[in-house]
């Protein structure tokens, strides 16, 4: 089991912190972060620690390497929350690991088949609605608000009236996943994470988070989420070259691929 502050043996060690009174800080990493408590772990260990049958799991940034580990562990009855489940989410649905989807998109062939077959339940949001749900969860509010995205559509939604303007707004329940698994390009040695195309709110909304990264670098820049928000950073093992092609293929190809992953 991983504890906060643990370091996996062959992974980059934590950078020593400057001590109180040591005023000569040579480089500040992330202005908002004053403590770094993310743990580094190997992906398989992190998944074993963080995911159980029935976990409400947000996936963003298409974490396919993490999905391979989840598939090997044959997890069941996951709820998948995502703006776009990607190939990772689609593989989990196709393997029967998922019973409920809370999503804004359903691009995967296996997800579409499961929805037609009725083997997974679905709560659909617009992209802004789902993001507002994450933001509300992150802020500890019971619901998030969006202006007009659901109005006039066949989506199911509820409204509240603005007490200041009288305008009707769509209310989206807060999303507070048990765990967020996010793929990001890089993290620094303290566990500050640089995101690419993923809303940072998902990491704040989830009770715990696992961020898989392509590389660990000295400094991160751009859209950075501070280490104290991140439970575990795991370097993402390279995904075999044929994976995405296999996942874009038909049922037979997928079955073959899944058997290979689980072998």
């Amino acid at each position, binding site marked *: 089991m991983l504890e906060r502050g643990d370091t996996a043996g062959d992974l980059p060690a934590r950078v020593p912190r400057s001590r109180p009174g040591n005023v000569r800080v040579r480089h500040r990493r992330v202005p908002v972060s004053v403590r770094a408590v993310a743990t580094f772990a190997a992906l398989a260990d992190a998944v074993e620690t963080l995911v159980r049958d029935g976990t409400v799991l947000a996936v963003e940034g298409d974490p396919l390497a993490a999905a391979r580990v989840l598939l090997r562990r044959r997890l069941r009855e996951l709820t998948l929350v995502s703006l776009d489940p990607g190939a990772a989410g689609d593989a989990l649905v196709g393997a029967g690991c998922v019973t409920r989807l809370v999503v804004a998109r359903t691009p995967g062939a296996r997800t579409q088949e499961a929805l*037609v077959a009725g083997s997974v339940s679905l709560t*659909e949001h*617009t992209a*802004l609605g789902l*993001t507002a749900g994450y933001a509300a969860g992150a802020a500890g509010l019971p619901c998030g608000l969006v202006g*007009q*995205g659901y*109005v006039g559509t066949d989506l199911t939604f509820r409204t509240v009236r603005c007490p200041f303007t009288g305008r009707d707004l769509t209310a989206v329940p807060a999303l507070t996943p048990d765990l967020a698994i996010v793929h990001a390009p890089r993290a620094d040695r303290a566990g500050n994470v640089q995101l690419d*195309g993923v809303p940072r709110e998902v990491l704040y909304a989830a009770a715990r988070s696992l961020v898989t990264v392509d590389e660990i670098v000295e400094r991160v820049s751009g859209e950075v989420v501070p280490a104290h928000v991140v439970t575990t950073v795991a370097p993402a093992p390279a995904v075999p070259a044929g994976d995405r092609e296999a996942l874009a293929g038909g049922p037979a190809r997928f079955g073959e691929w899944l058997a290979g992953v689980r072998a």
Partner: protein
Amino acid sequence: MSMLAAAARLLRPGQVCVATAGAPLAAARLAQASVPDLTVVADTDPDLRYALPRADVGLVHADQVDVFGNLNATLLGDHAEPDVRFAGGGALADIAAVLPVIVLLEHRLAAFVERVDFVTAPGALSGPLDRALVGLPGSGPVAVVTDLGVLLPDPATAELVLAELHPGVTVEQVRAETGWALEVSDELVLGGSPA
């Protein structure tokens, strides 16, 4: 004129365009080559909610469009027990609710229907006054660009009418691929208008 070029031609200098992935984003990028100061925001931008109120136009794809420009990217058949599931709306409804949108899709009978199976994103709903009644700004899609031509909404009825034919395409050809009694604009443009 290709479908992408026909859509790109509708974007104006200085506009901020929100485009959905695939052909719309490709058309927006194509337009950037010739339209000065055109800003393109992808619908997957995590800050889309802040970009939308500042944007001028949306460029989107749908799987089905109806006579009132309502868009379906969700399913075919019964809502609870669908026959087909599509990729889902994503930000489509968020965009179409607040921006004038240009819709980009292949002109096929299965996609051009009298009434969409599922309203993923609102067009004019059922008539010219409907959007205002439910509190939506604007009047629905401003253009539907296909591989056969361009449909524009008739301001009086909010129904999409044929306004432009791509080179070599006939009115009969478009009508054969349209699932409602398609009207033809009095000012029908043949073979693509000048840029």
